């Protein structure tokens, strides 16, 4: 697979952010904050971490990526387009009648998705099942990645999986939580407190890594380190900024499930192109 420099990956991430804004503005509905915050995670996965081949989506040795928080699918669609799975023009069909890009991801419409998701809390269990199947097939170097939101940790199903995976010593699974502190009704610690989140996972028998989820080098390093730890299953708590890169969206839970209108999108794109005014020339 092609190797990208961190600088190049940061540029790809910025391009992905801009396409998320364009796509959501065009769709007129959808989730903004979560997808923008997860751009580094998805860029790292598709451009550095995952063993995959866009020309062979059903390659029998490919790694698997389960997106447990299906509402954040805009970041995945855009990253898939940048990785070569989807024509970028198709991004403008998001949420429209007849589109393959459903409001929440559907496996049967897109052959390179591994699961249908949206209802929260079931991704970790599915990843566990796939990892067990690979173990039975003696495909021990085939990794299963699962991205979860933090709001969905309210779901009991997550903690059922949290008990199950250490019990069965599943090592070919790497979980990452997008810890952006927001959910629909507000900040996670007000809606349903999750802290001490690290201690909770540790108590369930997991090895926990905590990182800055918007630092792409830190994200890649954490995924690589996860493969070296075999005593316990790994979960990465990736602290991210919801709405990352767009000033008026950052840290505001009201942007959880809203798309930008034309004026807001224009402002957001301008901010992203100038890296919030740090550079003066806007490259279109």
């Amino acid at each position, binding site marked *: 697979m092609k190797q990208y420099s961190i600088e190049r990956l940061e540029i790809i991430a910025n391009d992905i952010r801009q396409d998320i804004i364009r796509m959501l503005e065009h769709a007129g509905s959808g989730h903004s904050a979560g997808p923008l915050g997860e751009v580094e995670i998805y860029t790292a996965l598709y451009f550095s971490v995952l063993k995959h081949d866009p020309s062979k989506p059903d390659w029998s040795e490919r790694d698997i990526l389960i997106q447990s928080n299906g509402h954040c699918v805009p970041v995945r669609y855009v990253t898939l387009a940048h990785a070569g799975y989807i024509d970028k023009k198709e991004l403008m069909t998001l949420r429209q009648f007849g589109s393959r890009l459903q409001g929440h991801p559907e*496996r049967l419409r897109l052959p390179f998705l591994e699961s249908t998701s949206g209802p929260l*809390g*079931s991704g970790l269990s*599915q*990843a566990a099942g796939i990892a067990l199947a690979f173990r*039975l097939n003696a495909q021990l170097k085939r990794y299963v990645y699962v991205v979860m939101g933090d709001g969905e940790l309210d779901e009991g*199903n997550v903690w059922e*999986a949290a008990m*199950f995976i250490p019990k069965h010593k599943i090592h070919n699974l790497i979980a990452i939580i997008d810890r952006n502190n927001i959910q629909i009704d507000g900040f996670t610690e007000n809606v349903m407190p999750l802290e001490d989140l690290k201690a909770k996972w540790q108590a369930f028998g997991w090895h926990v890594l905590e990182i800055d989820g918007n630092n792409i080098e830190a994200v890649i390093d954490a995924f690589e380190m996860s493969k070296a730890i075999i005593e316990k299953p790994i979960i990465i708590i990736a602290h991210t900024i919801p709405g990352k890169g767009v000033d008026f969206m950052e840290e505001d839970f009201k942007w959880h499930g809203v798309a930008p209108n034309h004026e807001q999108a224009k402002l957001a794109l301008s901010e992203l192109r100038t890296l919030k005014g740090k550079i003066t020339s806007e490259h279109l």
Partner: protein
Amino acid sequence: MVDPKLVDFRKGYINEPIRKGFGRGLLTLGKTNSDVVACCADLTESTQMNLFAEAYPERFFEIGVAEQNLVTVGSGLAAGGKIPFVSSYAAFNPGRNYEQIRTTICLNDRPVKIIGSHAGVSVGPDGATHQMLEDIVLMRALPNMVVLSPGDSIEAEKCTIAMANDPQPNYMRLAREASAVYTTLETPFKIGQAYVYEPGEDLTIISTGAMTFQALLSIDLLFKDGIDVEIIHVPTIKPLDKKTILASITKTRACLVIEEGQIAGGLGGAVAELASEFFPIPIIRLGIQDRFGESGTPTELLQYFGLDANHIRLAAHKVLLNRR
């Protein structure tokens, strides 16, 4: 009509829990199909998964009392190319984990094999909480799902083996108690097929699960009353064998449906939907009439809820009064 090669039950029959057949079938699959795996939610012996678990421990996964995890791990195993059988009591599987079945198995189209044992009031002393009566309607409403309800342990064994070769998600309901074994190894079984177990001219009786035995017991009672009944056994509730059912009701023009579950949306509902669209006739649905079960012996309960041969006889006379 295919000869059903049933047991000559008038001369005698043995009783065996239907789930025993599931246990044997799964054990056979362990030998014949290396892709078959099994998961259970802390009811391994109760659901008869223990035979497989002991013989193939590397392919068995204990989930604990966690039915949501049970089916979602199952979905993942299927995504990894396995054929997972996932079992618990029907009250929890699919009672507790409906959304996960809907999204990760049906919408996702993964061939997970869901086993709900201890369905119906014949669970007996455990009472209403454990007597699952709504599983058929819950599973029947899901696109892609195949709904199976074998009538005895021998048919359950055949059904289990057939499920492994079916590419769709499947739900199989099993009763707990020892039930009459009225089929034989030679009795035909195919997913999607209903069977005429007794040909007749006057009235169609359609039944599923262990209720078919009660229907068979009503043959002689009704014959004495001068009513020649046709008995159709429906082990596959979805997809419904419309052809066999329509062929019978267009002939008899009256129908009784018997099932050990809520009459709303169950087999009775399915037959009524079919008849209303293609050949409207009087139908009486025998089953649980929009209420919950309660503790008792299986025999007491079947009698109390009107699901024995005597109640079938009364209902037969009633439905024939309305025949046009």
